[in-house]
């Protein structure tokens, strides 16, 4: 039988754990709202951007003048995986699910005899991928100092990737992140960014536009921005997913701590009762012995 004092300390410690997880849950809820607002605010831009770029690339695709970012290098031998995860843990399966998806892709590509290069964004992804594939990681982007992801962070990441593309370091780039569906569900997603693929919406591509300067010049200007925009929305989705995952993980933890406190309290009361009964027996048998 564990002694009473130990049980009491145990209960106290679980109680303070519960306080922490509860606080984390509430912080995550507030941050989630902010992340969702940010994602909402970026939507008009991304939608219009993709519509315009879709229309442009539909007309440029297939022609010889199509920029490399759109047409690709004509090979897919060297694959760049950009794995975007969180900087912190304690958010349920969020980081692991992204890493798992990336790992599956790495194995698949390796089996096909392709060269794989990895850029990690976020500490957690680097840690997890580094265990098996440390030699593949060519760059790590640290966002731990960035409080709210902004477009500039996305631009910096995009710039790094684009300069690698220009120097022919890879043929195909894919980004990995988690799409936010709701607080309990985040879907790990892989999305190819280079060569760019856009869903051309039929209506937009039918409209005839004047281009100033030329169509090619605009496309050449927009495609690198498209990469940044895609990375930016992935970062925003990721931020919302992370907070959502953390919120539900911490909600579970809080509930578990509550259950544990109940169980421990029952055990504590039982032991206390046992101690009292014991003492009574001792007194009574002492009195009888006289």
């Amino acid at each position, binding site marked *: 039988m564990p002694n009473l004092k130990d049980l009491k300390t145990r209960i106290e410690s679980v109680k303070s754990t519960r306080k922490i997880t509860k606080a984390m849950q509430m912080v995550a809820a507030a941050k989630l709202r902010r992340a969702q607002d940010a994602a909402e605010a*970026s939507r008009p*831009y991304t939608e219009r951007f993709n519509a315009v770029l879709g229309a442009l690339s539909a007309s440029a695709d297939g022609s010889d003048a199509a920029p490399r970012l759109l047409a690709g290098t004509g090979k897919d031998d060297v694959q760049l995986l950009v794995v975007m995860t969180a900087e912190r843990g304690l958010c349920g399966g969020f980081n692991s699910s992204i890493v798992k998806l990336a790992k599956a892709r790495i194995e698949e590509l390796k089996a096909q005899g392709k060269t794989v290069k990895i850029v990690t964004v976020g500490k957690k992804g680097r840690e997890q991928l580094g265990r098996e594939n440390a030699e593949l990681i060519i760059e790590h982007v640290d966002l731990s100092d960035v409080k709210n992801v902004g477009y500039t962070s*996305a631009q910096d990441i995009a710039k790094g990737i684009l300069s690698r593309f220009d120097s022919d370091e890879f043929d195909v780039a894919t980004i990995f992140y988690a799409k936010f569906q709701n607080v309990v569900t985040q879907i790990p997603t892989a999305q190819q960014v280079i060569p760019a693929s856009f869903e051309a919406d039929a209506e937009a591509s039918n409209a005839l*536009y004047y281009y*100033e300067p030329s169509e090619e010049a*605009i496309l050449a200007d927009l495609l690198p921005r498209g990469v940044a925009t895609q990375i930016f929305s992935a970062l925003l989705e990721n931020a919302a997913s992370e907070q959502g995952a953390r919120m539900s993980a911490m909600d579970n933890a809080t509930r578990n701590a509550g259950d544990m406190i109940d169980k421990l309290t029952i055990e504590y009361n039982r032991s206390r009762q046992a101690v009292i009964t014991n003492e009574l027996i001792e007194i009574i048998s002492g009195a009888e012995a006289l």
Partner: protein
Amino acid sequence: MADNVQFDLVSPERKLASATVSAVQIPGADGDLTAMAGHEPTILTLRPGLVTASGAQGDIAYVVTGGFAELSATGISVLAEMALPKEEVTQEVVSKLLDAAKSAEASATGENEVAAAKVVADLSQVASELGLSA
């Protein structure tokens, strides 16, 4: 009085304006233009400069650093890389932008050098239009 047209100014981080206006001045990469209702469908790239929307509430100016604009008969959408209402642009903001542009110019080579120098020049122009030092 000319017809009114829907005007949207969005940056990746926020939607800055959505209003019905009569005309919008846009700093196009090949030169400024003023778009009004019934404009031919056009897509143009922007250079750093001032986007000015003139409507019932008077003129509202925004500083943009680049991006593109989509004009059609029914709407004008400006998709700026970075956009701020003119009032929010302080000396600090301008200096920061200029510093970034200058360092980009310093590291640019070949064709990009000209483009980078143009960005610096355009930004200085914006600064002087706002009465700030470049």
